[in-house]
Each structure stands twice: as structure tokens, then as C-alpha cells.
């Protein structure tokens, strides 16, 4: 017995095995012991079969002995309401709890580290909701034993002096906590405890927590005893994602099996997984497994996983590109009106976006408790505020500069400096914090390789909505008709009774308002500060020029094209170089097609 193969560092000790087997019906003990040995053999320790038989026999004896002791246990439990909650029948991996969970908890302070480990393992698989907290406290050295006036187990809060009773959960006074003595743990035990906490959490009611604990087990590996417990969980698990993880954890453990066909089966299961740990383990199997069929199967599984990962990576890039393109579209679409339709080089465009973002921030500070409402309200508000600023700009400055595009550039640049400084003086030169509502944070988890951020998904949808709305305004409303008429032939439009100066002001207001709406969306993605506009103005111009001036569809294609290009370059070159390459591309592209992707068609030799 002294040469027991399981006595490995950080693993299970002899006593642990004994105690564990003690609570396992003999029929299952065989299978379990077999797996225990296969786990051992994976580390290069092969145990003789005789040992196995001895172990099982000993375990059976011990089991019987424990049963005798346990029979008296319920009498010792005083006023325990948790006994009834202990799941028994649906957990075939764990023996019927003759000894209550409470009694086991009380055993924690006693005996050696190995005793403690054994008790902890048993507790972890009991499926009791209190266990995770107790084991965490034990690992952190916050689990205290109290002997006077009666034996109690206490949990000290992570914060310090206060605490609660581990069994009843009722708060206890600071004096009792101070009087409690820390239940000692050493590092190997602490490591085991971390895994055991994960095991205990597998039965947690919250699926996310179950998934987290399974991921932890996937990293730490699973002992054969835990494996049986996992087998039992398979039938109870209803959430597909967690079930997948559970199967993966089991298959990973089966991959350590002595039997080649079991390993092959495990590989079949793992073939569908995209997790990094699985990948590493399969690599090892493909290289080092003693069985050729297993090696081949593992290699094949890796191939299929790699193909799938490549597909998902591509999808991810596509999504990143789409969302980056949407950001560009939102930023540029207002400019497509002011620059594209009216021919005004509006360098203050970025500052109009900034005004929209500040409107969002301002509404949030007005109504801090209604986050979602403030964001939704910010959309029309930003449109109006930025639109009014735009109309003021047009009436105050730009109307004197029509036909001199290069001068509008200088004047609007001056306006942009004034607006920036105005924001700095009015609010602060520092960035303003803009909060995101819950439905905008977090991400849509699809698989380990691919998850889509909600905020970016919404940006894509929002950008398309804004685009469609603007397209409708331009094509279906009388304002849109007048705008197009003035853009095509100003004198003729005026001759037909269109008030061109009024149309100019409204068009510029529309473009500015759209920029403000873009600012609401961008406030959810980036910092809101006086300089935020500058980050977008150059990109916006690139998009409009690339797509073709005066063409909304060109702006859409241009934005998406540049967004995709940047995101597909980024993995290979890094963000900055990708941006430089895109800029060089645009410079070269303009040489080929000086009027953009979709040029305005006309007979005039000079635009």
C-alpha cells in the first residue's frame, strides 16, 4: 500500500482515496479505481493489477467501517434544517449521505491535510449550495474553527472582522470571529481546493457559473472521482452550452484512458470543440499517443478544428470589418451631404459629431437613473442641437463662401477650433464619462473563437437605419427633391421657385444633424472629449472621396470597403500599419479614379 501510485504531488493522497472509496458503493468502486489508475498511467506510473484488487478490497472494508461510525452521526446534529436539502437519489456517483453534509463540514478542522482534502472532495460532490463558499473560505484561510462554547465552523468575510456561521449562515459577532482559529491549509491542498470549488459550482443554479467552473476544470484537469460526478451531472444538465462544456471536460478526461477505443471516442467528442485547451491536448495526442489509430484520429480532428477556426476567424474579421465600416459610415454620412451634395469642405464635421456625443453626456447627467431612456432621447436631441449649430454655421459663415470650396475649408476649420475650445471652456478639457446601458454592454457568445460585442452589433444596425432614413429623405421628400435640384443646377432651381438659400441652410442642417446622431452612437464606443472630432474628420473625408462625392451609395460602399480592408489587414500588420496602408491605398486609388468609386456623371469638364 505504501507504493500506491496515486501519491503524486498535488494529486490525491492515500487517505483521500480511502475515504472517497468509502463513500462509493463497491460496484462502482471497480470502474472508478480503474480510471484512477489510468490517470496515473498517463503520468508514466503503471500500477500492477494486484494493487488495484487490494485497493478495492481495502476500500470495501473501510467503507463498512465508516458506515458503522456514521450511523451515530445524525444524533449529534442539532437543529439542522439543511439535511433535507441534500440531494441523494439523483447522484449515483455519491453514496447516500448517511452522514449529513453538516457533519462533514464539522470534520474539516480535524485530522491531517489529507483528511481535510478527503472531506473537501466529498463535500464538493454533495451538490450543496453552501459548499462552494466554505471551500473558497478554506482555501483563502478564512475558515475558522471554534471550540467554545460549542464546536462551530465560521467563515470570516473577505473584508475582515465580521463573519457568519458556515452551517447555518447566520451572522456572528466579531468576538467569535476573533476567537476562532484558522483551519490550516498548505499549497497542494489549496490547489486541490480551487478545483473542488469548481466542482461544487457545477451544480450551481446559474448556468454562467456552471460554465465558468467547467472551464476551470478544463484547465486544471479532472480526477477520476470527479469524473463520475460529472457523468451524473450530464443527465441533469439542460443548458446546451454548459452540456457541451461538460461533455468536453469528460472527453478530455477519457483521453487519459488506458483503452484506445475510449480515447478514440473521446477524440470524436472533442472534434467539435474549439477550446484552446482541447487543441493543446489533441496536439499532444497526435504526437505522443502509443496507438497509431488514436494518433491519426487526433491529427484528423485537429485538421477539422483548424478549418473551423479559420472559418470563424474569417467571420470574426468580417464582423469587425462590418462594424468598423458602420462607424465610418456613421461618421461620414453627414459629410456626404455637406461635402458631397453641397460641395462644402466642412472641416468642423468632427466637431458636430462631438456636439452629438456631448448632448448624450449632458442628457445622462440630467437623468442618471434612466440610462436607456437618456440614450434613446439623445438621438433626436443630438440631431436638433447639432442641426441648429449647422444652420448657424451655414447662415453665419458658409453662405458667403459658395463656389470657393478651398475657402470653406479654411473657414470651417476655424469654426472647428472655436467649437473645440468652447467645449473645453464650458465643460472641461478632460474626457467626459458616458455610461452604456446593460443591453449595450457585454457580448453575444457564439463559441470560444467567436463572440460578437453587443455595442458593435447595434452600431451596425443603427448605421444601416440612419443610412436608410437619409436615403428616404433624399429620394422621397420634397426637401430631398429640392436639395438635389439645387445641387444639380442652382440657377435653374431658383428660376423654378426654389428658395435656394433656405434649402442650403436646411441641407447643411440635415448633414450636421446626422453628424450629431453619429456622435450619440460613437459616444458608446469611444471617449467623449474635446478632441474626439479630429479623430473622425480625416477618416470621413477619405470615405466620401473614396466612395465618390455626391453619392450616398458610394459612401456606403466606401465606408464598408475601407472598414473591411482595415480589419482584414490588422491581424497581419497591426493597427497603425493597417491604417497607413489604407491611406496609401486611397492616395493611389484617387490617381486611378480621381472622382471616387461612383463618380457623378455629367457633361461638365470641370466639377
Amino acid at each position, binding site marked *: 500500500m505504501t507504493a500506491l501510485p496515486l501519491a503524486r504531488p498535488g494529486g490525491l493522497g492515500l487517505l483521500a482515496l480511502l475515504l472517497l472509496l468509502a463513500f462509493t458503493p463497491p460496484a462502482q468502486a471497480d470502474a472508478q479505481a480503474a480510471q484512477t489508475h489510468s490517470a496515473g498511467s498517463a503520468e508514466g506510473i503503471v500500477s500492477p493489477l494486484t494493487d488495484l484488487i487490494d485497493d478495492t478490497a481495502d476500500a470495501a472494508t473501510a467503507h463498512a467501517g465508516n458506515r458503522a461510525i456514521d450511523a451515530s452521526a445524525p444524533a449529534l446534529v442539532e437543529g439542522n434544517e439543511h439535511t433535507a436539502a441534500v440531494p441523494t437519489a439523483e447522484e449515483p456517483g455519491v453514496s447516500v449521505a448517511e452522514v449529513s453534509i453538516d457533519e462533514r463540514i464539522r470534520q474539516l478542522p480535524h485530522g491531517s491535510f489529507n483528511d481535510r482534502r478527503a472531506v473537501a472532495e466529498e463535500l464538493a460532490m454533495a451538490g450543496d449550495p453552501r459548499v462552494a463558499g466554505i471551500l473558497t473560505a478554506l482555501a483563502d484561510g478564512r475558515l475558522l474553527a471554534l471550540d467554545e462554547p460549542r464546536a462551530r465552523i465560521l467563515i470570516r468575510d473577505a473584508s475582515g472582522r465580521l463573519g457568519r456561521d458556515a452551517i447555518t449562515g447566520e451572522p456572528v459577532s466579531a468576538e467569535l470571529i476573533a476567537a476562532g482559529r484558522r483551519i490550516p491549509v498548505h499549497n497542494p491542498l489549496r490547489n486541490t481546493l480551487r478545483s473542488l470549488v469548481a466542482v461544487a459550482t457545477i451544480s450551481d443554479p446559474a448556468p454562467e457559473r456552471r460554465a465558468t467552473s467547467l472551464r476551470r476544470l478544463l484547465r486544471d484537469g479532472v480526477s477520476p472521482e470527479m469524473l463520475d460526478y460529472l457523468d451524473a451531472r450530464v443527465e441533469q444538465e439542460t443548458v446546451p452550452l454548459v452540456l457541451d462544456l461538460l461533455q468536453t471536460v469528460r472527453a478530455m478526461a477519457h483521453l487519459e484512458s488506458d483503452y484506445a477505443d475510449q480515447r478514440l471516442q473521446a477524440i470524436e467528442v472533442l472534434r467539435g470543440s474549439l477550446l484552446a485547451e482541447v487543441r493543446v491536448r489533441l496536439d499532444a495526442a497526435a504526437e505522443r499517443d502509443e496507438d497509431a489509430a488514436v494518433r491519426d484520429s487526433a491529427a484528423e480532428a485537429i485538421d477539422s478544428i483548424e478549418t473551423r477556426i479559420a472559418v470563424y476567424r474569417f467571420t470574426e474579421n468580417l464582423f469587425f470589418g462590418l462594424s468598423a465600416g458602420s462607424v465610418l459610415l456613421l461618421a461620414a454620412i453627414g459629410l456626404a451631404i455637406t461635402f458631397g451634395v453641397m460641395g462644402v*469642405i466642412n*472641416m468642423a464635421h468632427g466637431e458636430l459629431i462631438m456636439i452629438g456625443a456631448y448632448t448624450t453626456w449632458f442628457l445622462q447627467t440630467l437623468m442618471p437613473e434612466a440610462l436607456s431612456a437618456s440614450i434613446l432621447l439623445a438621438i433626436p436631441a443630438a440631431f436638433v442641437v447639432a442641426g441648429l449649430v449647422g444652420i448657424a454655421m451655414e447662415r453665419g*459663415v458658409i453662405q*458667403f*463662401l459658395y463656389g*470657393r*470650396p*478651398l*475657402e*470653406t*475649408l*479654411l*473657414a470651417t*476649420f*476655424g*469654426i*472647428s*477650433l*472655436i467649437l*473645440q*475650445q*468652447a467645449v*473645453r*471652456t464650458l465643460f472641461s478639457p478632460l474626457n467626459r464619462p458616458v455610461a452604456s446601458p446593460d443591453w449595450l454592454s457585454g457580448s453575444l457568445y457564439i463559441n470560444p473563437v467567436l463572440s460578437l460585442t453587443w455595442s458593435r452589433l447595434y452600431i451596425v444596425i443603427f448605421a444601416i437605419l440612419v443610412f436608410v432614413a437619409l436615403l428616404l429623405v433624399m429620394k422621397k421628400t420634397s426637401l430631398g427633391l429640392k436639395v438635389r435640384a439645387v445641387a444639380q443646377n442652382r440657377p435653374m432651381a431658383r428660376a423654378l421657385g426654389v428658395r435656394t438659400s433656405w434649402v442650403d441652410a436646411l441641407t447643411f442642417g440635415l448633414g450636421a444633424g446626422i453628424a450629431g446622431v453619429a456622435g450619440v452612437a460613437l459616444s458608446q464606443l469611444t471617449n467623449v472629449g474635446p478632441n474626439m472630432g*479630429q479623430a473622425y474628420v*480625416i477618416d470621413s*473625408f*477619405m470615405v466620401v*472621396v473614396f466612395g465618390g462625392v455626391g453619392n450616398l451609395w458610394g459612401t456606403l460602399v466606401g465606408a464598408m470597403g475601407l472598414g473591411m480592408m482595415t480589419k482584414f489587414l490588422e491581424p497581419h500588420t497591426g493597427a*497603425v*500599419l493597417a*491604417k*497607413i496602408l489604407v*491611406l*496609401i491605398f*486611397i*492616395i*493611389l486609388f*484617387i*490617381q*486611378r479614379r*480621381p*472622382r471616387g468609386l461612383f463618380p457623378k456623371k455629367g457633361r461638365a*469638364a*470641370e466639377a
Partner: protein
Amino acid sequence: MLTQRLFLSDWGGLTVLVLLLALMVAVPIANLVVPPDSPWHLSTYWVALLGKFLTFALLALSIDLIWGYAGILSLGHGAFFGLGGYAMGMHLTRQIGDRGVYGNPELPDFMVFLSYESLPWYWWGFDMFWFAMLMVVLVPGLLALVFGWLAFRSRVTGVYFAIITQALVFALMLAFFRNEMGFGGNNGLTDFKEILGFSVQARETRVGLFVISALAVILAYLAARFIVTSRFGRVLVAVRDAENRARFAGYRVEHYKLWLFVFSAMLAGIAGALYVPQVGIINPGEFSPLRSIEAVLWVAVGGRGSLFGAIIGAFAVNGAKTWFTTAYPEVWLFALGALFVLVTVFLPRGLVGLFRRRTREDQP
């Protein structure tokens, strides 16, 4: 005849030339000869500041040459200015030798810090002054040649040209911010010790650089004046006013524009090279699109299409900037912004336009 062309035909230009010459003589005397306690003494700070303004004037002159006379608005002239500055900065960095923090005689400090094994090939030769000076004009000139050839050949004009020059300078800024480029990344090149054996900190060197800058502006002005009064210059004005008509009249419009653009880029490169030893640092900030647009403003404020107006504009705007940023720092951007708006709306011909009668020749 030539005197008539260069000097006498343009009284405003002549006045500015005389002022520059006076400055070139008066400033060294006021700094070096006049004793420090005299009210006529000019501190070295002022010498360096005026020297910096002179390099800005040279940059403005180069912009006015293409914008005012060929109608090419470049929002990326900072690219050429910065490249010239980096060429000079590289020479000065090589001159540091083993006096850097790490004391490595072969590699500049930042390369030791980034664990370079040896000097990158594009740094070769910059320890020689003549080579560095050649690069000051060659690198901006070549970039302008390639960029201009591509752009003018495909008839990229006006707004489109302005925007792609902005893309150019923006791309350069991003590139020079990268440490991998081997130009000192974010920090740029600084900590210069000496130029041609003279300490860059010394008063005499400052005055010397000031005089050279003034001389450069005067010579550049004369060269530009020579160009715009020549037949070549007449064609340029025709191109500016009616590009297609000039083309249909049989002129190879793109050649005229290209050579002027290259010359202008070289002037900007020289301006950058003179700027760096006087301010003691060159970093990627010089490539920021904002700087380039600001330089266009100097020309707009002074009055485009008059050459000397650009010099006046550079001095006026930068003088105002220096005064505002020390006296009322928050107000400066308001003032600069308002200047942009007021000048474009009310003074389309700049400050010069206030003093000059409208003549047909000057119609933009």
C-alpha cells in the same frame, strides 16, 4: 532688367526684403554687440524665436508659390517640412556621437534603448554634413516628384488634391510614430549637441542660424519671384485660372505643376532643416495635419498670390500665437479660429489686400 523684374515691379515685396535685410543686420548686433543691460539688447530667446518665425515664413512662401500661383492647395506641406527637419535631425543626432546617455559611439540613444544591433541602412551617410544637406532637399523633392507625378498626371485637382495631401501627411505621422521606423518614434530626435562643430546652445550659433534663415528666406523669395515673373510663371497663372483652357492651348499643364510642386517641396524641406537646430527637437507632431492647415492659414492671412504676403502672414499669426499663448492661453484657439473665419469671409486677399489696390492681375 532683372532688377526691374525681381525688385522694383513689386513695392510690397521690396519693402519686406528691406525689412528682412535690416533684421538680418540688426538682430545679431542687438544680441551680440549691445550690452545685456541696455534696453536695446535682444535676448537669445528672441533670436531663436525670430529664427523660428523665419523658417515658418519660408514654409509659408513655399505654400504660397503653389497655392497662390498654380492653385494647388496642399494640406500636407508639413510632410516636406518634417522630412527636411528629420534629415537635419538625423545629422545632428549622428553628431552627438558617444555623448548620449548610453555613450554608444555607433548608435543613437533610442536605438540602444530599442536594442538595435547596428545602424539601419537609411541612416548611413548622415554623419556627413554635405550628405545630410543633400537629403534635406532630395527627400522632400523626390516625394513631391512621385506624389505630384501621380496626382497631376491623373488630373487630381482642387479639393481632391487637398484631401489626399492630408492623407499623405497623416500617413507619415502615423508611420513616424512607430518605433519600428527607426526615427525615434514618439519622442523624435532631440538632445542635439553641436552643428559643424559649434554648440547648438551657444548664443553665437543661434545668431548664425538666424542669419542663415533670414538669408534663406530672402534667396527663396527672389527665386520664387524669378519663377513667377518668368514665362513659366505666366503659364502657371493661366493654369490656376483656367486649367482646361491652358491644356487645350497646348501646354503640358501637369509638367508645369509638377516642377513647381517639387521646387516648393524643396523649399519646405530647407525650412524644416533650419527649424530643427533652432528649436532643438523634431518629432512626428510636425506631421500632424493640424500643423499643415495652420501653415496654409499663414498664407491666407498674409494674402495668397503675392509671395511677400506669406512672409507677413507667417510673422503676424505666429507673433499673435506667441503673445496669446503666454498672455491668454484659453483664448488662443478662439482667436485662431476667428482669424480663419474672418480672413476667409472678409479678407479673401489677406492683410496685403488691405494695402493694395485691386488690379486685374491679382484676381485669384
